[in-house]
């Protein structure tokens, strides 16, 4: 398949002109990773992001009649590569950058406000960047890591019969030992103090993602009542398998939304049954828009997606990422009256972005995800998510939509944003005006 594409590319070399940037287009670069130890998580997301935008081009001729110029840049989940991609893409006037890596996001946050390019880090990156007042160029809807953690705690409390019953319980936290996994810890410690449960932390070093048996022995000794997982890449399937090995009750192990791919749970076989994970988009291909992707993109061979992977959780996650971009572009077009919006316009488009349930329906994605509501001051929305369970072959929704504990998250967000700004003095003051949401 890949060889064929390659051969095709070479064969077409002479025929095709260099259409890197056609005149009438909006340039949407996608930072992706299809190589390296994180490719298992990166590939489906890259496919979803690419395919939805490609579908808009094929089906609607772009957005508002303007074609989207899509270009992938391979980062391999490495920060240097990500920054290099950003620099290379910057000269082509991208309207938005989505780094798809917490590390790359952190490196790009200071640059964004200087270069005036909005950054979309959908439910990853710096939690504090939800504060629009301090981070006018960064957007991380629909929920931050801290929202996610508070939702997990709420779910656990629900199963235990109320937050009061958390007292005296032990909750384990297994996480990727890097910025991504460390981010939720302040809130976790805070909640532990507030509700009287004990937290046991199990960090997984990047070099030992596939070698976790020692850590899981600790889990077996400590017998935490619940396990929370903040994993990514090759760490996820290994953790699920190790949990199954020590006979940990899988329905008491709950991953964040980045630890919920089909490929994370499947390798554990029957042992993975019951594994829980948080999610904010739906799984499955039974949506008109996704059928359109099948029809316009995949069936025509313009995608790298394998047919049976369409509708997988992370594929849909990628689609959702692209829906947010597309809707922001459309919103920006309405707001400015221009067709070819630029990065500044798109920032305004993001800042007044609203995707209501009706709008999801119009998009052909009814019930695909909860409403998204970004405002000038709140670049996140702190939206609800739900818990899904692996039944051995597919994900099944097992809870209602859970709202985050805003009262716990907000003070931390304020403090963290304040901290970031003081540490990075002189941090540019926000000069961008707020738009009325349309």
């Amino acid at each position, binding site marked *: 398949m890949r060889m064929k594409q390659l051969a095709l590319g070479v064969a077409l070399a002479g025929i095709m002109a260099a259409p890197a940037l056609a005149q009438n287009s909006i340039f949407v670069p996608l930072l992706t990773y299809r190589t390296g*130890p994180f490719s298992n998580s990166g590939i489906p997301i890259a496919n979803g992001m690419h395919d939805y935008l490609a579908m808009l081009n094929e089906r609607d001729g772009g957005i508002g009649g303007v074609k989207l110029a899509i270009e992938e840049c391979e980062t391999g989940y490495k920060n240097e590569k990500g920054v290099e991609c950003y620099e290379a893409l910057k000269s082509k006037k991208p309207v938005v950058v989505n780094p798809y890596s917490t590390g790359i996001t952190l490196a790009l946050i200071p640059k964004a406000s200087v270069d005036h390019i909005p950054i979309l880090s959908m439910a990853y990156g710096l939690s504090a960047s939800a504060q629009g007042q301090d981070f006018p160029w960064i957007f991380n809807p629909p929920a931050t890591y801290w929202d996610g953690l508070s939702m997990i705690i709420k779910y656990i409390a629900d199963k235990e019969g109320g937050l009061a019953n958390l007292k005296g319980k032990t909750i384990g936290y297994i996480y990727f030992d890097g910025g991504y996994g460390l981010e939720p810890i302040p809130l976790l410690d805070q909640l532990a103090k507030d509700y009287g449960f004990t937290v046991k932390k199990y960090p997984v070093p990047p070099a*030992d993602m*596939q070698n976790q048996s020692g850590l899981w*022995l*600790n889990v077996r*000794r400590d017998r935490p009542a619940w396990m929370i997982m903040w994993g990514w890449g*090759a760490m996820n399937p290994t953790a699920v398998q190790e949990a199954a090995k020590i006979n940990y009750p899988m329905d008491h192990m709950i991953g964040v939304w980045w630890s919920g791919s089909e*490929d994370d749970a499947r390798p554990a076989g029957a042992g993975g049954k019951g594994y829980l994970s948080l999610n904010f988009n739906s799984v499955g291909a039974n949506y008109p828009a996704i059928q359109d992707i099948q029809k316009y993109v995949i069936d025509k061979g313009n995608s790298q997606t394998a047919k049976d992977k369409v509708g997988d959780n992370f594929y849909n996650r990628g689609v959702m990422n692209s829906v947010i971009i597309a809707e922001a572009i459309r919103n920006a077009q309405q707001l400015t009256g221009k067709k070819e919006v630029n990065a500044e316009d798109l920032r305004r488009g993001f800042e007044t972005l609203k995707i209501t349930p009706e709008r999801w329906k119009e998009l052909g994605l009814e019930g695909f995800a909860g409403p998204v509501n970004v405002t000038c001051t709140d670049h996140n929305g702190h939206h609800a998510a739900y818990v899904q369970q692996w039944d051995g072959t597919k994900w099944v929704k097992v809870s209602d939509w859970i709202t985050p504990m805003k009262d716990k998250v907000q003070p931390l967000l304020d403090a963290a944003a304040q901290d970031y700004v003081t540490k990075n003095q002189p941090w540019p003051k926000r000069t961008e005006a707020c738009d009325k949401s349309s």
Partner: protein
Amino acid sequence: MDLLYQIFVDPFVQMGTAPDLLVQTLWEGLVSGVLYALIALGFVLIFKASGVFNFAQGIMVVFAALTLVGLYEKGVPAFLALALTIVVMLGLAVLVERLMLRPLVNQPDIVLFMATFGLTYVLIGLGEIIFGGDPKVMIADQLYLPRGAIDVNMLGGFVSLQKIDIAAAIIASLMVAGLAVVFQKTRIGRALRAVADSHKAALSVGISLEQIWVVVWFAAGIVALATGIMWGARSNVSFALEIVSLKALPVLILGGLTSIPGAIVGGIIIGVGEKLGEFYWGPLLGSGIESWLAYVIALIFLLFRPQGLFGERIIERI
């Protein structure tokens, strides 16, 4: 005082009060040690015969496993895929010898070491182009590898022995035994040992260096395949496995670069040492010490025996 208690007393108290966990930890250490040893074995084979520190052994593990699973996914029956993979590894050995080793004969060690880095890159690119970067599930069932666990009730608790781990230990022992027999008893084995002793002397008695190199790289390829199947069955087959193979390096130097028993003993010391360390002393340091503990263990041994436990004594003359 409290800290001293936690370092020197508490772990042993824990060992005493929960002996089942101690046994389990030792078992886990043993199994990962055997798996490290398998990777190290590939290194040793090549180093012995050609003096090449083959950094590409790690990626050969991934490549072999990917080829196996990739062929199976393309519709080849499991055992035919296994056979074909062995053929692929043979082809790789021939190519490496022709294109890389032969032109680099007589170059300093570091140049050969560097060349295997080049090989690593080529194999990463090639593997991803052919099979894609998405992870694959190892075809353990199709190869009749056992799944599930045996829970042994003992010492007031239970010890869970994964069947796949038992299989890994058995296969590793068989492999080592097989290699030992080949080295000691067969004509080619004697030739291998002769080459390991001295390239020039071996050449002068009519041993073909080229042939020997193909043989050892092929043997290392088969060891890589076995390792790939075992690690793959424990998690999945992806390029991340390459990182795990770095753990073979401390095993290797601990055992001595040229010793097959050294690789096994070193593997077990490192495996057991790091699991015990992580389990009993890791929480004191905030866990996750496994990433460096193996190297520190190896370093401590090296300070006393600079050539590793079983390595050939380094004799230097002016």
